[in-house]
């Protein structure tokens, strides 16, 4: 089980995340929702060990992750929000590098890489440099890299970014099947509709704090709202979006 216990991150006097607690059990998909600057990425970075919490800790199977961060990372697959990749490598080479870094057996990794590239429709482009890839192709390489080692915990940060409709649908089904296979999945996204469809539970963050934490169904019932989008709007959106849109239109139409 993956747990966050009173997780906080402070940058100077400013708290990016404050006393956030949750747990993800095998087979669960936990959705992280929130507007820009709500602390989603900071939470993900702490979960993946890329950022050290100021207070609290991440626990895996009851033990603090930071006790043996390397062993913890071996259990973790991560898809970052920004697709930073070594663009002078080919997709195949990048996956090979990840396989080596995770100390996977070479021959089996090769077979797995070939198969994943084919399944992600990257077979013919596997040998081309990542610099020539589209955003969607880069995203597929990152998804393949996160899954390559078959880790029990998966952290996806905006995984649908750049994917076409078919690939997005495939990915949605993939997440469901991974959950059925007993993976623990943290899914951070702005795409409320997808989160509503695949997540077992959601945490809604605002200004670094959890303002809601429950199953989608329970949240809808509790807030008496028909959809997650309405729940989110009620809890997080404090501005009159329609008024702002009207003002933008007025600004661009202004002549003198």
């Amino acid at each position: 089980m993956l747990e966050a216990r009173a997780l906080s991150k402070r940058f100077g006097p400013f708290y990016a995340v404050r006393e956030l607690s949750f747990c993800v059990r095998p087979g669960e998909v936990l959705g992280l929702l929130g507007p820009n600057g709500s602390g989603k990425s900071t939470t993900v970075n702490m979960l993946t060990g890329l950022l050290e919490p100021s207070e609290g800790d991440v626990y895996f199977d009851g033990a603090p992750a930071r006790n043996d961060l390397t062993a913890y990372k071996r259990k973790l697959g991560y898809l970052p929000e920004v697709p930073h990749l070594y663009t002078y490598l080919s997709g195949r080479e990048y996956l090979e590098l990840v396989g080596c870094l995770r100390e996977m057996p070479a021959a089996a990794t090769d077979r797995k890489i070939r198969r994943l590239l084919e399944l992600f429709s990257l077979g013919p482009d596997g040998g081309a440099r990542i610099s020539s890839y589209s955003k969607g192709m880069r995203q597929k390489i990152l998804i393949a890299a996160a899954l390559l080692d078959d880790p029990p915990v998966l952290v996806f940060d905006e995984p649908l970014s750049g994917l076409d409709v078919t690939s997005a649908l495939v990915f949605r089904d993939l997440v469901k099947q991974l959950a059925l296979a007993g993976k623990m999945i943290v899914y951070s996204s702005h795409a409320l509709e997808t989160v509503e469809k695949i997540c077992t539970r959601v945490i809604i963050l605002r200004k670094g704090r959890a303002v809601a934490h429950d199953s989608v169904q329970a949240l809808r019932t509790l807030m008496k709202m028909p959809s997650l989008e309405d729940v989110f709007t009620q809890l997080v959106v404090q501005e009159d979006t329609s008024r702002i849109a009207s003002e933008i239109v007025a600004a661009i139409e202004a002549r003198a």
Partner: protein
Amino acid sequence: MPSFLDALPERSTVSPTRRLANLFYERFFYNDLLSTHDDPQLASANLMAILAFPGLLCLFWIPKYYVTLARMPEAARDLAVFGDRFFWLSFEMAVLGLLTTLQWDRLLPDRRDYMILGPQPVSVRVLFEAQVKALAKFLGMFFVIANAGSALFFPIAAVPKRAGNIEGLLFFFGHWVSLCGAGLFAVLLVIAMQGVLTNVLRPKLFERISPFVQSLLAASFLGIIVLLPMLPGRVLSGAASVSLLAKQSFAIFALPPVWFAALGESLAGRHGAVFTALAGSAVLAAAGVTLVAAGTYLLSYQRFMRRSLESAGQHGARDSQAAQAFRGALRRTWLKEPSERAAFLFTLWTLGRSRQHRLYFGAFLAVGAAIVFAQTWSLSLMGGPSLRLLSQPYILLFLALVGIRVVFAFPSDLPANWAFRFHAGATIESYLKGTRKAVWAAGPIPLLALTTPGAAMLWGFSAAIVHGAVLALVAWITIEFALWGFWKIPFTCSYVAGRAHVIILWTFTAVGMLVYASSMASLELWALGNGWRLLLLAAPAAAITAVWRPYRSLLAADSGGPIFDEPEDTRVYLMNLSG
């Protein structure tokens, strides 16, 4: 009451061409090859100072030079002036050629330009005009800087005493025309090469070959700059040059700076069949390269913009069966651990493919090749091994290893190092194993493959074995020194700006290289004297290895590596400003 804003014109008065030209011009300085950190102005200022340095040396050199020239007999004096003219023109051509080569990727619009500027209502003509203007401004500035000393001081010192006002002016005029012609020739030669390649090759092939052409050109220009101080005295002064010129030797006729030096001489009034022929070559070459550059560049420009997107959709090459078999064999034999394989592959991929790293490493190799060329071109290979001949592989080895170590410190796509931060779980020692092997593959192994057969052909099989063994032993010790305290995976650690002081680095490198090459060559010469002496070297080396390896592992384990963040220098420099 009308406000201040009402007085402003409706639209910006800066034309799109000018705005774009400024943008392209600034972008020339934001080149990862010119600046390794976020301070392009500082990097450019350093570069300008380095380029201006030879010209400014004239200030100190001129009084003595002037007196020496005045005392010379006329024929010897003219020859000396010709040699100096050759030097300045070669320097200028190499500098401008190198700068144009460093901007190789900026000469034509790239995919990003197409994506950003393509949707804007700007015609290709405007883009082209802006690009040409920016390039002219950038190179023009460096033309002035590189020639700052020679354009003025050289003619003052070299104008013949007998010359009247008109002849004196002609001398100045001849020198300036030759400088402009030579500079333009060097720049346009690079542009023409790129233009021809773009038009002749398929986009994918061009994309693949282009980095290697750039590296080769940059290494050649850099090699010329290093060779220059050694050349005039040997090639173009004294009896040897007289005879070469008289014989109209190919060695003279093949050198473009000689054409332009002869053009300067002709315009200054020194006539003769050889000078006239060489000056004719200069005019023809300049005209030819201008035509080719203009034609191909114009043709390439629009085509390249379109192609840059089309080529993105093309598939990459698959590994050949031979390559797959080779990699499989490496895995089974030399690179058994996944972590060392990761470090090995990543190091070699980055050295070979990252433009910045390849060019920096290439610079060290180019300097080494130029020094070896200058030292050996007149050296007889016949007879037994000499200290001078034996030092050459050590010069190359030293510069290759220093080069590798220097480029290891420059990060490659730093934000992408999350892959290492996240996935890397092995100890630093196991990554260092792979790194050391990559260093062997990039430096000592090719050098051994090159020099050992040469030694066998020249001095016999047993001498080749001794040479190979000593070179390998020296390489091993040097690699251990080079990676001492390097608790990182190459190219993945942040870089603190100003940490590597270029002038100090090169000074230490030059001094170190001289001491290293001569002492290691002496050691090899001693070992070659008697094959048994090799055992005397091998025995202590084996003993040291037995002690060193466990100690190194202990140090690595204590280091807390791999390190991904270089600590900032926390010292505060007060500079007595507190009053």
